[in-house]
């Protein structure tokens, strides 16, 4: 199960090879717990942020910890929902339902967030 998911992950382009020059590609994983209300809210927040601030330069994976408990363990997830930014560095973890949009933006270091 885990392997097949890994396989399905699109290849991540090298940071410096980004298509639009100085704009880095965001690789994001959002761990949720099925369809709990917080999970659903976190998913909604992230899909909204991605489409608004990171159009065409993000890979957002939404992972159900029920379905992929081992993946959660690899990424040292302890609670859900958790957003994990692996690229661009540094690695950032945001725990909770990401209700504070500004905080999410600033935590992720997304340009124009000021």
């Amino acid at each position, binding site marked *: 199960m885990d392997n097949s998911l890994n396989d399905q992950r699109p290849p991540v382009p090298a940071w410096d090879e980004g298509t639009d020059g100085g704009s880095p590609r965001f690789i994001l994983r959002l761990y949720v*717990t*099925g*369809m*709990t*209300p*917080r*999970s659903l809210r976190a998913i909604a927040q992230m899909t909204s942020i991605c489409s608004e601030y990171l159009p065409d330069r993000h890979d957002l994976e939404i992972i159900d*910890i*029920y379905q992929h*408990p*081992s993946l*959660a*363990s690899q990424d040292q*997830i*302890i*609670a*859900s*929902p*958790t957003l994990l930014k692996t690229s661009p560095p*540094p690695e950032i*973890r*945001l*725990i*909770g*339902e990401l*209700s504070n949009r500004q905080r999410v933006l600033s935590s992720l270091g997304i340009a124009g967030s000021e």
Partner: protein
Amino acid sequence: MDDALLQAQIDELRRRLLEAENTIEAIRGGEVDAFVVTEGGTQRIYTLQGADRPYRLLVEQMQQGAVTLTDRGDIAYCNRRFSELLDFPHHRLIGTPLADFVILEQPHSFPALLEAGRTSSAQTEAELVASDGTHIPVILTFNALDPESGVAIGVLITDLTSQHSHERLRETTEQLRINEERYRTLFQSIDEGFCVLEMIYDDQGRCCDYRFLEVNPAFEKQSGLSNALGRTIREMVPDIEETWLQIYGEVAESGIPKRFVNEAEKLSRWFNVYAFRLGGTHSRRVAILFTDITQQRAAEIQLKFARSRLESTLHAAEIGTWEFDLISQSVSADANLARIFGFSPNDTDERPLSAYLAMIHPNDRGTVSDAISAAMDSGDRLEVSYRISVGGRPDRHVVARGRVDRDDTGRAVRMPGVVIDVTAQRLAEESLRESERNLRCIAESLEEADRRKDQFLATLAHELRNPLAPIKSAAQMMQAVDEDPEQLRELSALVNRQADQMVRLIDDLLDVSRISRGKIKLRTATVDLWDVVAVALESAAPFIDDSKQQLHVQNAKEALFVTGDAARLTQVIVNLLNNAAKYTPAAGEIWFRVERVENEAWITVRDNGIGLEKSSLNKIFEMFEQVDVSKERGQSGLGIGLSLAKTLVDLHGGTIVAESPGVNQGCRFIVKLPLLVGYTPPEEIDSGQPVTTNGESPKYRILVVDDARGIRYVLSRMLVKMGHSVVEAIDGEDGYRKAIEYLPDIVFSDISMPNMNGHELAQKIRQTETLQNIRLVALTGFGQDADRQNAIESGFDEHIVKPVDIKVVERLLHSNP
């Protein structure tokens, strides 16, 4: 550098701290709802209360049954659907072993399923037992859950009932759709008209109209109604016959289908209709399947007419038709055949062949059976004529003709054919044959009469010529006679006698003519038979003398009187005497007798002449009949004397019979006349005497042979006067005898003579040594080339025709070397 590294480590720690702070903050703030905890190498996820609510709802409301089992297999939880499926309240199920509700098919066992479910998963079809005992087909899916939480196994129950019924419904619907399409196609494509009617009723509930709810494409062609869909019959045909409404109304009401043939006069059509109700009792719909049979009906009527015409024709022609089934040996027939065979015309049932054979004439049955067998065995056609004999009816003549039909193996199976009544033709043919026979008889008798008449005419010529010859000769001689009174007297007496003979002949002829015209009349008076006999004997005497016959007369002692015509009675007796003289050889004897036998006078003329055959006795009195006209007999006569005699005797109320013991044994004629009583008998008279004549010869010695005395006499005198020496002979025999005795130089001979005719005489003379040099001269009265030729062939040197001309004789004698 160390500072920088340290600084980086510090930053990292800060970030981590911040992360931890954030995490704690988030947890505290209730922003997380699950934790991932690693226990002994495996991850467990703990959710906060309420986080699994949607799952609960999902499970509760799904259309599959869901059950969780404890490790032992007891129900820990079940959803509402499962409880509904089994129709048990929820609380009755919890804690109960699931096995209580499951029936498994062999070889599955529940413990095995549980075991599989504990470790991984298992699936099987099974049946659940509901609270009311019904069995519900299901699929059970076992899955391992979380044994440590006490919920070891999850079971999903999928109800196949609905799936089954749904499939069935779908299948049924599909089948219906196919059927519907099939029938629709059928109704669309069939040539018959089809329609669905909705009956329309008036206020009283009477059917008053109907609407076309559905029609097929053939409807218009079959009905003649276009665009009928949705319209009513009254709209299209306002005055449609009530019968149509009645019939359809009845079908709608009763639900009993009807098949019928009916005319729609307004549509000018005849229909063959099948009507049936669609739907239940209160359905007002009637479906109609129909065909326009107008033309078919017309053809049928025409056919019926033609058949009836054919039947009438066959009847008129008296032809019956039949078909013989050779397998069952039975015959089926039409009315005509039944009629011909004497069965009732209405009874045309099949009958065994024997029933027909029984009607056939017993003599024809075999022929018919044989003909049938022969046709069956080898022939292909039967033709046989036979008679039908039905009691109390005249036989019918019929001709049967048939043809044999064979199957593939050549076995005769049936034979159709006709019987033609040919009775009328057969009767016509018979009557034709009958009349043909009659006509042939008439023709034969006419031919015979014609032949006799020819004979008669030839004889007549001869007979008339016979007296003429001596008369002519006498006349010639009278010119040369030197006033010799004796000779003159002799000659005139001769002429007189010959003339009398002619007169008698001519009188006879006239009488015959009168008789045949029914004009002869008797001048009756009381007649003394003596007188009659005297005159008759006188008249016949010369003739008898000529023939050198002896006549013996025996008269009755008493006088015999009759009522009659004396002249006619004389004629009768003379004819009988002449007849006797004619058929009796020279020097023969004739007996004449008159006597009384009771109240009759019998006049009998008997001779010892040539006699008669028994068969000739009847014919002898017929007109022109001569017993024998052969050359040997050569007897002259018209053949009318006896016929005349009979007629005259009949006119006198008497009878005449001819009797003869046989040929050459003589003959007897008896005339029987009714007597008158009270007269005195007359006296007897004498008979004449036979006469013989002789001659002399100066130059030639001549023999004259002729049975006719006159001719003989005249020729002899002629020759004597010429200075020849002459001897006479009365027939061939006499001639031959005298020729041997006298040895003449020349012989004149008649051809037609009794005893021995001229031809025989000539042959005999030629065969006689001593008579070799005699000159033979034939005398014949017929003067025909054939006679001349016959004479030369017989041995005659010359031939002269009677009456003999003196000049011809002189020339002939002078020419003699």
